């Protein structure tokens, strides 16, 4: 099918780079079909702005793509078949096999049936909820107020619920607190320290959930739960600060030449 004699290529958009989406409609654009440019000028207000923005965004993409060597470079990646598929398939099968193996080796038990009249001494959810359960048990930290004769401003349960809300909210808010383009922990020792401390706190607060299994006084447990992560954070910070200079030197000098740290 090398024969192209009948092909007559018609330009329909007046020679401008095709960034206005006019070519992708079902009906081939003719003189009647408004281009994005024309649609834009017919509109006003918000819809005009929308069209203007779309046009800009498309042009920007187009230009970046034109000056990029992404598509043309020699090795774009491994071919999907067979390389990627076989490798991914092998990893997936191994992982699923691991799940099956663990299930075969450690089957779950079925406890006694529900009995509303006998409270078990240990009530626990699955392990991944321990952190939340631990936060619910923070009642020893719920301050009593002198003005209220030492009674508490909010109930212990509400205090625990609020602790959960605060922790989840803080984590959700992260991308709006730590901005910038740093990626490696060494580049931002402070945030790495927060992360290490936070991950450790998830474990220590989980221990509070099983406090009655731990042979330590509750006050000591609470101290460990809160001070431990801070200590780990400080250690992380100190370690990364120390490593930073030597590490960054060898890391990628060109990176700093291109984008000097702020």
């Amino acid at each position, binding site marked *: 099918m090398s024969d192209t004699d009948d092909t007559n290529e018609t330009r329909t958009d007046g020679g401008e780079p095709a960034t206005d989406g006019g070519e992708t409609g079902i009906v081939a654009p003719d003189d009647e079909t408004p281009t994005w440019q024309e649609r834009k000028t017919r509109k006003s207000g918000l819809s005009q702005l929308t069209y203007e923005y779309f046009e800009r965004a498309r042009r920007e993409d187009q230009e970046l793509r034109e000056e990029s060597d992404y598509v043309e470079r020699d090795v774009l990646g491994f071919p999907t078949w067979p390389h990627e598929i076989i490798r991914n398939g092998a990893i997936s099968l191994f992982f699923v096999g691991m799940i099956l193996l663990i299930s075969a080796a450690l089957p779950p038990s079925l406890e006694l049936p529900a009995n509303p009249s006998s409270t078990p001494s240990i*009530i626990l959810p699955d392990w991944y909820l321990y952190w939340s359960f631990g936060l619910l048990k923070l009642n020893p930290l719920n301050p009593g107020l002198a003005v209220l004769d030492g009674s508490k401003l909010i109930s212990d349960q509400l205090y*625990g*619920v609020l602790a959960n809300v605060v922790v989840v909210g803080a984590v959700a808010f992260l991308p709006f607190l730590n901005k910038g383009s740093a990626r490696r922990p060494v580049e931002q020792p402070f945030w790495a320290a927060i992360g290490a401390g936070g991950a450790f706190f998830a474990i220590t607060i989980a221990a509070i959930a099983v406090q009655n299994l731990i042979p330590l006084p509750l006050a000591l447990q609470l101290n460990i739960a809160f001070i431990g992560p801070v200590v780990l954070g400080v250690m992380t910070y100190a370690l990364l600060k120390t490593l930073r200079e030597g590490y960054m030197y060898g890391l990628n000098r060109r990176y700093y030449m291109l984008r000097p740290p702020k």
Partner: protein
Amino acid sequence: MSLEKQDDFDHRTWLKRKDLTPIETVFLTALIYIDKRLRIVDYLELLEDAYYKVNLQMPKSHTEQYDLDNKFWYWYPLYSLGFFSVLAYIVAAVSGALLGFYYSPSAAGDPTVAYQSVKMIMQDVQFGYALRSIHRWAAQIMMAAVFLHMLRVYFTGSYKEPRELNWLLGIILISLSMVFGYTGYLLPWNQLAFWAGQIGVEMALATPIVGEWGAQLLFGGFTLGQATLVRMYILHVFILPFVVTALIALHVGIVWVQGIAEPH
């Protein structure tokens, strides 16, 4: 007016003029036949357009933009954790669908029908014991993978612009996964299930303003019973599977469009 068909685009002569192999002839003839009747060319064009849109990447990846040549990073193996979450989720979904054939969410009787159906699964159903084990472990491993995935996203700074929304979506996903696990935990209606449910109701009631309403909505009342079990069941097998699957698809779709965040 002549009855002879006037064809401006005489495809048959065009075909003859070309020097085609039999396969090409058959293909083109079939294509022209169908296209004359259904105008499929338009749809092919749409498909082609969609194909290129699907393959869209951000114009330049980070390593290219800054011309960095060390493209491997020793953190990369941890980038498989998101995929492992998906895999474990699929294993849990399949085994859960099979468990669904045998489980019945009824708190009637003593011990309850729900409890007895789980017992039946474990003692009488062929491979039932294995099925329940696989379902539980897949769920546990999924949660572990999700936590670790979140840590890797944190420590590689992958949540930064333009990926903030995917981070928020991730928070929603991990929360819903935990609710998924919690509702499933209550289904066998054993001691732990019952008392974990009790704590859930107490926490809901402790929340100001929306608390009582929330307890009614999620637990079907302030004391645990049939209504609670059915609500947990509907959440676990009907609502959450669809919602979480859709959100995972969206999450991974966004990663697809944005590309994986690259280190320097």
